[in-house]
C-alpha cells in the first residue's frame, strides 16, 4: 500500500448564493483518524463528497490537496451509514465489488482473508439479506479494505447499529484501518471521544479543533478520559443549538 498522505481542504461552499461554509481550513493528518462533528446541515457531508470528488449541490471555491501533491483520484475509499451491499451478490462477491465493477479479476484469496479478519468467514456464500445489521456493516468494511486505498472516508458508518455492536465495530475499524488517513463524519460525541486523533467541530465559519483525551485511541468506552471528553463535547454541541 502506498504511504498515506495528509489532506488539506481550504475554501468556501455556497448553494445558490447561500453560504454553507466560508473560508475554512481542514487538515486530515496522515495516517490518523479525524472525527468531524457539527450540527446537521453545516456541510459535513458536503466536505466528505468534495474530498471524494463526488457531485455536490452548489459550488466550491478553494483547494483540496494531498501532502504528496499527487491527485486524489482512486486513492480514497468510502463507507456510508447504509452498508450499500448489493442484495443479489454473496458476501464474498460484495467484498470484491470494486474489481467486479471495473471488470478486473477479483483477488478472492485476499477477500477471504479480509472476511476472516472481520469475522465473516462462515458467511462468504450468504446473501446480505440473511445477515444482521452488524454483520452487513462488517461486510461493507471488508469491501472498503479490499480497495486497499491510503485514505478512507467514513460517513456515520456505525450510527444505525445497536450500542454493543457499534462499540465492537469501532474497535474493529480502528484496528483494520491503522496506517490510513481516516475522516469519520459522526453525530456521536462518544464515538469521537473514542476514535479520534483529532476532533474537528465544523461551523459555518471555521473548522475548530477540540481537545482530544490525553490517552491514545482507540480509547476504552469506560475510561474516565473518554467519558469526560464525551460529556464536554456533548455540552458544547448542545450549546450550538441554543
Amino acid at each position, binding site marked *: 500500500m502506498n504511504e498515506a498522505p495528509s489532506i488539506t481542504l481550504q475554501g468556501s461552499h455556497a448553494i445558490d448564493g447561500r453560504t454553507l461554509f466560508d473560508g475554512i481550513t481542514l487538515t486530515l493528518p496522515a495516517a490518523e483518524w479525524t472525527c468531524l462533528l457539527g450540527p446537521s446541515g453545516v456541510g459535513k457531508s458536503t466536505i466528505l*463528497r468534495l474530498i*471524494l*470528488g*463526488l457531485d455536490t449541490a452548489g459550488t466550491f471555491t478553494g483547494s483540496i490537496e494531498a501532502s504528496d501533491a499527487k491527485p486524489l*483520484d*482512486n486513492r*480514497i*475509499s*468510502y463507507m*456510508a451509514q*447504509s452498508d*450499500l451491499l*448489493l*442484495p*443479489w*451478490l454473496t458476501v464474498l462477491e460484495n467484498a470484491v*465489488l*470494486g474489481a*467486479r*465493477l*471495473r*471488470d478486473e479479476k477479483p483477488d478472492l484469496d485476499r477477500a477471504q482473508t479480509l472476511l476472516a479478519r472481520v469475522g465473516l468467514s462462515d458467511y462468504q456464500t450468504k*446473501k*446480505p*439479506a440473511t445477515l444482521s445489521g452488524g454483520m452487513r456493516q462488517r461486510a461493507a468494511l471488508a469491501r472498503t479494505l479490499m*480497495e486497499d486505498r491510503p485514505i478512507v472516508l467514513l460517513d456515520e458508518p456505525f450510527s444505525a447499529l445497536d450500542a454493543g455492536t457499534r462499540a465492537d465495530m469501532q474497535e474493529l475499524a480502528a484496528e483494520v484501518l491503522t496506517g490510513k488517513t481516516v475522516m469519520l463524519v459522526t453525530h456521536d460525541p462518544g464515538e469521537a471521544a473514542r476514535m479520534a486523533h483529532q476532533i474537528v467541530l465544523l461551523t459555518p465559519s471555521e473548522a475548530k479543533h477540540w481537545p482530544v483525551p490525553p490517552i491514545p485511541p482507540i480509547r476504552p468506552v469506560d475510561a474516565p478520559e473518554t467519558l469526560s471528553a464525551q460529556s464536554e463535547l456533548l455540552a458544547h454541541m448542545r450549546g450550538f443549538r441554543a
Partner: protein
Amino acid sequence: MRWLYGVAAMVVGLVLWQTIVWITGVPKFILPSPLQVAEAAYTSRALIAEHAMVTITEVIIGLLIGTVLGAVTAIQLASSQTLQRLMLPILVFTQAVPVFALAPILTLWFGYGMASKIVMAVLIIYFPVTSAFHDGLSRVDTGLIDLARTMGATKHQIMRRIRIPHALPSLATGLRLAAVYTPIGAVIGEWVGSSEGLGYLMLLASGRVKIDLMFASLITLAIITVILHTAVGILADRLSRYSQGLTS
C-alpha cells in the same frame, strides 16, 4: 393449494352459466350452454388447435420483440439525460394514440399475415415495458452510484453491474403487464384482417352463427392467456427474487 380455489371458481362459473341457459331458455345461437361449447371444442379440436398455434406464435414473438425493444429503450433513456429529456415526452405523447386504431394501418403496411399482428402486439407492450423498466433504472439508491464512482467504475459499468440488476423487479412488473396485453394485440390484429388465428376463427364462427365454436375459441384464447400469464409470472418472480437476494 391456491389452484384449488381457481378450480372451484371455475366450477361455480360453469354451473352459473348452465343455470342461466336453463332458466332463461336462450337459444343456442345467442348463448350456448357450457356442454354445447365443450362439444363444439371437441369436434372442432383440430381446427381450433391449428388457429391457436398461429395466435400463440404471434403472441410469443410479439412478447419477445416487445420486451427486448422496451428494455433496450429503457436502458438507453436511463443512460443519457439528453435522450431522456428528448424522447420521454414523445413516448408519452404516442400513448395518446389508441394503438387499436392503428390496426387497419398496420394491416395495410404489413399485410394479412402474422407480421401485422406481431407489430400490433409489440406496439401495445413496448410502452409499459419501457416505462416500468426505466422507472426502476432511475430509482437506484444514489449511495450505490456514489460508491461505485469512488471505486472508479464507468457509467457503463455502473449500468451493467448495478442499475440493471437493481431494476429487474421493475422489468418483471412490465413483463407481467405485457403477458396480459400481448394476446389482446394479436387478436385485434386478427379481427381487422387475417385468414388465420383465433381472432379470425371467432369472426368466422360468428358470421356462420356457430356461436358454440366462437365460445370455444374464446375460451381457448383465455386459457392461452392464463398459461402465458402464469409462465411469465414465474419468470418475473425469479427476476425479482434474484435482484432482492432471496434465491439460494
